[in-house]
């Protein structure tokens, strides 16, 4: 619709020039489109949804992304019936005509859950015993057990989860969030991605598309912190250049640019100067942040890390520091959840890598108060089949679990369910786009009114199909 971008434009825009513009024989609706296309020059720290559509419950988002597709049957969805049916064929009425990935043309037999579940917290939430630490914060978790998605292969499924579409070229939810709300901090990117591999499975390839800004201006894209070399690409000044020299260089460039602006009158130059300042600040702030210097041994232990070693645990610690410093959207990937074979062993390893750090991070956020207005999301791009693939499970899209936490959602509750075999979401099914609508809602944005004109369409994170805000799960 272009409406939102218009809102941002008018702040810096001369009303009189608009009148002149429309007087020039360009239709009013056309003028609107035109404004939307120009949104890229609006101010860095301002979001286009201003004021917000309603009062927000959440100011920042932490996405613990379990790439590869964790089995819901060995995490959050207890299925005793599946155990009873172990080795027996899945009812054909369920599986007929449904998509499978690597099980194409193979027999579809039930595969018992590999671990017991236990009750945790006052709420008595049932969680797999592999996750005692996550269990210990069960009263802070809202478990959605009825997720479903459309894409059965990793790459498109991830893209759908992050951007609302399996087609490439759409903005990720973090980019939408920055576009809508603007950025809070001025020495760090507003959207940061951290990744780690694990020891319990093959590492999922993760395309930069997953944090791309798509058709939105690229300043809204996520910045991936590298685990090797400089944490942000090209952050380190060249060898043989002192900090003082680099500072002088940036100052000189800025002064020269200012002088040139006087000569050519180019508003882009002012932005360029700001960006050099920001870049320079990042050269100091980012290394300080990522070194984990000053973090106590006790804290390290709580997360289960020994320092900035690029593991999921140390990334969780880093995520906390990013959130504290005003980063709006932090995504922490764990890339080893694709358990086609030997799921028992793989789950043990992977749960160990994830359980403790996840719980420590949520506890930490609670302690610092950030918990109240942070939405924490834990989950993968899809779940895994109740059917055996040898000793593992294949990709599964009809039902899986997603866990939310934070002050805005009702802790100690669960929402929706799958059938007795854990095959399909049956009660209160939640599509990925419903999750997106809920996410935006919590941020103070009505997903239907939050669009960007691209290729003639008002593109939304939630796409063209109806999406539902999950009012029931909100605190």
């Amino acid at each position: 619709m272009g409406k939102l971008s218009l809102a941002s434009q008018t702040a810096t825009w001369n009303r009189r020039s608009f009148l002149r513009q429309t007087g020039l024989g360009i239709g009013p609706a056309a003028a609107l489109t035109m404004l939307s296309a120009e949104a890229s020059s609006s101010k860095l720290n301002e979001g286009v949804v201003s004021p917000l559509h309603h009062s927000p419950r959440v100011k920042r988002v932490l996405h613990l992304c379990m790439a590869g597709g964790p089995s819901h049957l060995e995490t959050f969805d207890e299925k005793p019936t599946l155990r009873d049916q172990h080795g027996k064929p899945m009812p054909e009425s369920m599986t007929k005509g449904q998509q499978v990935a690597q099980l194409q043309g193979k027999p579809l037999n039930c595969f018992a859950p590999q671990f017991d579940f236990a009750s945790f917290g006052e709420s008595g939430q049932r969680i797999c015993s592999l996750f005692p630490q996550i269990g210990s914060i069960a009263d802070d978790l809202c478990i959605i057990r009825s997720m479903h998605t459309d894409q059965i292969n990793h790459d498109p499924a991830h893209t759908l989860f992050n951007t609302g579409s399996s087609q490439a070229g759409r903005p990720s939810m973090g980019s939408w969030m920055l576009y809508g709300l603007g950025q809070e901090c001025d020495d760090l990117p507003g959207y940061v991605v951290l990744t780690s591999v694990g020891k319990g499975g093959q590492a999922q390839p993760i395309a930069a598309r997953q944090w791309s800004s798509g058709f939105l201006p690229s300043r809204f894209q996520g910045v991936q912190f590298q685990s090797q070399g400089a944490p942000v690409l090209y952050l380190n000044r060249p060898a043989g250049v002192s900090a003082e020299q680099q500072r002088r260089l940036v100052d000189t460039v800025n002064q020269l640019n200012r002088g040139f602006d006087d000569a050519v009158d180019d508003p882009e130059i002012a932005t360029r100067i700001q960006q050099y300042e920001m870049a320079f600040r990042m050269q100091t702030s980012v290394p300080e942040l990522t070194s984990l210097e000053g973090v106590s041994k006790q804290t390290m232990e709580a997360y289960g890390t020994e320092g900035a070693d690029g593991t999921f645990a140390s990334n969780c610690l880093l995520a906390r520091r990013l959130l504290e410093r005003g980063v709006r959207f932090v995504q922490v990937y764990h890339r080893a959840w694709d358990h086609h074979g030997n799921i028992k062993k793989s789950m043990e390893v992977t749960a160990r890598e994830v359980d403790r750090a996840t719980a420590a991070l949520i506890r930490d956020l609670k302690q610092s108060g950030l918990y109240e207005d942070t939405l924490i999301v834990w989950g993968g791009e899809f779940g895994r089949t109740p059917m055996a693939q040898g000793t593992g499970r294949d990709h599964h899209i009809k039902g899986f679990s997603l866990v939310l936490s934070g002050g805005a959602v009702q802790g100690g509750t669960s929402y929706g369910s799958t059938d007795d075999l854990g095959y399909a979401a049956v009660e209160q099914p939640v599509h990925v786009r419903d999750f997106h609508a809920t996410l935006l809602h919590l941020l103070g944005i009505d997903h239907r009114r939050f669009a960007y004109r691209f290729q003639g369409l008002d593109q939304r994170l939630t796409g063209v199909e109806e999406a539902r805000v999950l009012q029931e799960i909100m605190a």
Partner: protein
Amino acid sequence: MIRKLVLACPLLLGSQALADQPIEFNRDVRPILSNRCFACHGPDEGSRAAGLRLDDRQAATSLDGGAIVAGRSEKSELIRRIESHDELEVMPPQEHGEPLSQAEIELLRRWIDQGAEYQRHWAFTKLLRPQVPRMGARVPGTGMSGPRSAIDAFIRKKLADEGIVPTEAADVRTLVRRLAFDLTGLPPDPKQVEDYAARPSQRAYADFVEHLLKSPHFGERMAMYWLDLVRYADSLGYHGDQPRSVSPYRDYVIKAFNENKPFDQFTTEQLAGDLLPDATLWQRVASTYNRLNRASGEGGVQPKEYLAKYSADRVRTTGAVWLGTTIGCAECHDHKFDPFTAEDFYHFAAFFADIKEQGIVKSAVHIEKLPVPTPEQTQRLDALTRALEATEKEFQADTPELVAARVEWERELRSDSERWTWLQPTSVESQNGATLGVLDDHSVLASGPNPETDGYLVRGQFLEGDASPLSVDGLIVLRIELLPDKSLPRSGPGRASNGNLVLHAVEMSIDERRVTWQSARASHSQVHHAPEYVINGHKHGWAILPRAGQPSQLVLVGRLSPRDAAPGEGPLDGTSFEIRLRQSHGSGHNLGRFRLAVSNEAETGLVSGNVPDHVWSLVKLSEEERDGSQNQQINEAFRNATPLLQGVRDELARLRKQKKELQASIVTTLATTATDPRTIRVLPRGDWMDDSGDVMVPAFPGFLPQANRDSSQRLTRLDLAHWLTSRDNPLVARTFVNRLWMLMFGSGLARNVDDLGSQGEPPTHPELLDWLAMEFIDSGWDVKHMLRLIVSSETYRQSSRAPETLVSVDPYNRLYARQSRWRLEAEMVRDNALAVSGLLHRQIGGVSAKPYQPAGYWSQLNFPRRSYEHDRGPSQFRRGLYTHWQRTFLHPSLLAFDAPPREECTAQRSRSNTPLQSLVLLNDPTFVEAARSLASAAMGVQTSAFRERLHWVMQRALMREPRADEIPLFEALYNKGLEHYRASPEDIEKLLSIGATPLPDGAASAELAAWTSVARAILNLHESITRY
């Protein structure tokens, strides 16, 4: 809220600005209807509400179910509903957004009152050449002469109507720099700037334009844009994002633009080059276009689903590239805004159904790879082929000497075969768990687990009736034949992954009496793995590389141990044997298939070493008994064995190897091969699993002009190309010239260069756009002609700096009373730094290059994991457009400057201004090395004065002199730098050794380091990366 306020304004203004001009449907009304109503009351029948259709006048004004009474807004249901305050009645319904503004309602009311006239959407109307406006000889108020070109006439006419005065021409330096970037993507040579600045005439300008259009860099610049459209990339794009080779296609595009290939031909070759009669190599290369889509190699991919994805991708892309429309939106339902139906989509898809392709590209192994040799490679290949033919002939030739040798060879073979007795194993055991089996030909084949090392134990009996294996004096000869087998790696004969094996010892006993080996020989031995090593305990053992996949033989001669032998007692009767084969090399270098034979004649040769089994029996036939083919087989075996032809055989092997290596070094592309078309069905809601839809044959979108054709023949991609570039197609020429305009002015005449449909913004200058489109067609689709026209116009040559008043009246430069200015494209940012510093390697075309890239940037890639090795040598300094385009992890310096990953068609890049860009320019070694190189060149200027040097550098980098206020800033930077490097000499070496270009001996100095700082500052300037 704000929107309402703003939109209310034209209404207030209405009486003056709007009321005096008639409503124009396409300009004024269609955008409102399209944006607010068509989603439910438009072309898509599936989602049409209340049976009401507003995109079609007949339906909209129908007495039966229409909503408009032409001429009577007060009687029109449409007006009543959009004005309604009843929340159940108001249109659009609340959940579809806010109500229409007063201004919009007023506009619709006046349109209906004026007769509710519809127009066909502008982009779908037939192309006609509009009249060029006549203008007076002088432009009012400027003293400038009247328009010299049609472009200026259209632009100036509108400006005159608005009472706006065009901006004067840009200064010479700016203009030349602009022109060079626009037409070649590179900065101009400072010399050219000086020459032109010295005598800036109309003629000199025209000459400069010609010079640039003739430059080979012109093709590169145009390719940069074209490759975005067709989503050219060097990797698959999905999941593992494995590499693929398609760079010849890029070469084709560059060449096509450089040769000014007419656009219709360019179109045909890409869509259907493979179908052209007697298609040339480059026409087939062009057809790579059809295979540039993303593809997946992910395990678990369902081929049918991905074939549907690829098919939709092609429709989307081809629609966007040539038709400038979003036909891709009709994949799941009829288009909501334009008259494309879902059937149109699948008809269109059917054109591409004949492309031979895989749904899943397993292990990144592609089908239909077309080798594209360079002229030198073709020449070498021809020469090798000729040499091979000649040598083959020599190999087959008969000489009296050979005839005689063959007779002798056959005789020997016959007697040799009589001398050998095959050992028939009765039991075979592997020490470490391999499975050993005995085949019908008495050979032993290993399978199952392949242990690191192994020992085989073969036991058996000598058969009664066989000649005694032992000679009178206890001599025994053992032959081990190694045989190839398809079940083995590289067909064996060994079990190692390269087909090799290493044999360390052979222990044989007969009737429990041990044989002591005395000599060993082999038909072939690997270097450093002599046959003797089997009998003398040398740790290297015997091995056979490179003869993988071929038979070899080892012959051991020995005697029974003296204490057991009873000399003088006559022949010994061996009855049972036991043979141990020890293989201790490791990593599975074990025997795969072998056969054992014994003889009692020490001189038994290796004559049969390379002779296949069947030839052994064939030579036993007499001449008369053999047929032609049998004779031929014997002849072949003889020629492969005789020492007389050893030289020729070696020569053949050498030539074959050379040819193979040459062939492997030839770059390939994924050209299109046509096959039987797949069945294309309408997929309801785009669901690939739903086979209920109708089968679609190739056809053009129904609402566009159709081609005359023979309806009995299935249409092909050739027909599609011809239809696209026929004079009747209203979209293709408009789409392309609109984009050329964007390349020269920063935005299209129709702003949305990716959507000329009803949701796109209508053109600001529709007549000019149509005039350009017709000119394009009439010129024979001449791209250079169009660019020449555009850049020669005064409109193009205006300054991009405009007075405040003009900026406030026309902030987005919709009227072209000035030029636009923009940050250079990602590739040009790189090219500029390399060019001004003298590092640029100007090779045109070739495989992709890998510039420096931060370590670990590819760590997210898997299947397989990859590490990035940057190029060494000149290809490190190639232009940005040659950068290896890894879709999921595009080179970060390009990505930072908005280069698209090319997963989908990109018709217009965004242009952002971010801190990451600053970090690239400040710290990417490419830019630091360029600064050093520029500084080195400055040091070469014969002067000691700082200012003279600075002057030279500024001319070189920015084509201008430093301004007075800049000099002290540079000077301070230099002096402080000098101070630092004199105080910290260790930093000099560190800074100056960044990058691949070696620093000449003795060149390192504090001065050079300080100048490098100055050069870095210049390369970081906004001006350096901006086209003004």
